């Protein structure tokens, strides 16, 4: 048994050294080669895979996807922040509208036309926010008193609204004339008439001096 195993091992060793008859018969036989069409095909695949075009396409994909995601995030963030900013503006406008309404309602000498004008100016703002909403919003968002004063002064220069009476009382004649002239230049006749009425309401003994003689 051991002898047979030893013989087998020797034969295998001899064979592995390419020193056997089987190897010599096999090596003398026909040596087929791979077909040329396959050679061409495989070389082409290898060339296509290694060309720089592919790598540039990969690079393009590498930066294109993250950039798209970043752009989408930016737009989403902008859309989230924008409505909040508009809410703030609405709150400020609503506070002013409430103040003006209260100021005008206390004036007993105002005529019906005056009330109509007032409605025209205020309604758009009020319709946007119902009184309940306004109340909650003003509760939620209370501006400091100095900032409220500043906003009132700023609104004085806006074309569609009159400042509160407390401020108008303090105006000099020159300020009245300047404001009314500006409105006339801007052709805001109704508002300028309101200013004129207010002027004579607070200064019954004085007379406005305007270049185009509108009184």
């Amino acid at each position, binding site marked *: 048994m051991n002898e047979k195993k030893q013989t087998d091992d020797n034969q295998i060793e001899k064979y592995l050294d390419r020193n056997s008859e089987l190897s010599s018969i*096999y090596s003398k036989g026909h040596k087929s080669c791979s077909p040329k069409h396959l050679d061409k*095909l495989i070389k082409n695949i290898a060339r296509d895979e*290694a060309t720089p075009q592919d790598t540039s396409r990969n690079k393009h994909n590498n930066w294109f996807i993250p950039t798209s995601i970043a752009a989408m995030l930016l737009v989403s963030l902008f859309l989230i922040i924008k409505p909040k900013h508009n809410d703030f503006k609405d709150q400020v406008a609503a506070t002013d509208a409430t103040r003006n309404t209260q100021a005008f309602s206390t004036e007993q000498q105002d005529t019906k036309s005056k009330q109509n004008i007032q409605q025209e100016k205020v309604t758009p703002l009020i319709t946007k926010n119902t009184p309940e909403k306004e109340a909650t919003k003003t509760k939620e968002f209370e501006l400091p008193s100095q900032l409220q004063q500043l906003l009132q002064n700023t609104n004085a220069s806006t074309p569609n609204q009159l400042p509160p009476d407390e401020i108008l009382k303090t105006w000099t004649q020159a300020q009245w004339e300047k404001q009314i002239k500006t409105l006339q230049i801007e052709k805001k006749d109704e508002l300028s008439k309101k200013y004129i009425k207010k002027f004579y309401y607070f200064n019954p003994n004085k007379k406005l001096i305007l270049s185009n003689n509108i009184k």
Partner: protein
Amino acid sequence: MEAYRDGNVKAFDQLYGRFKDILYRYLTRQISNPAIAEEIFQDSWTAIIKNRHKYSVKSKFKTYLFHIAHNKLIDFYRSKHNSKLDLISYDDNNEDLQDNEHLSISLDHKVDSLNKYNYLIELLNKLPAAQRDVFLMHEETGMTLIEIAQVMDVSRDTVKSRLKYALNKLRNDMGHLK
């Protein structure tokens, strides 16, 4: 292979030129259908190309190439429709045929070198695929038993055993020509 991995196409051409014929012969001798052999040949090289970035120098490129080709060959045996017999014959470790049994090829051969070669090929085709595989791999590539074991994912002793049985059968039947 590393040069090709880094984008050198000429390096691949050199590599391909060196190994294409031995791989082709190994596959065509293993599978009688040349079309299927060519398909496996192409698939093996395509796998090498596609996975070039995963290649690391752990063993010789020849071992790496034949490992891929061998796996594809096994896949073919397993996926073949009527492959049950083929698969058994591949995994069969020579228990069916005893050493002294002949491969029963009754051909009237003249004793010249070309006919000896053809007879050898016919005998090879009669061997179980696993034994044929070891014989062909050594003949075509000159791999050692350990290298063949790496390619086939089996132990060195298994390879040695398969080779021993293959050689015995071939020698016995080739002896009839003398």
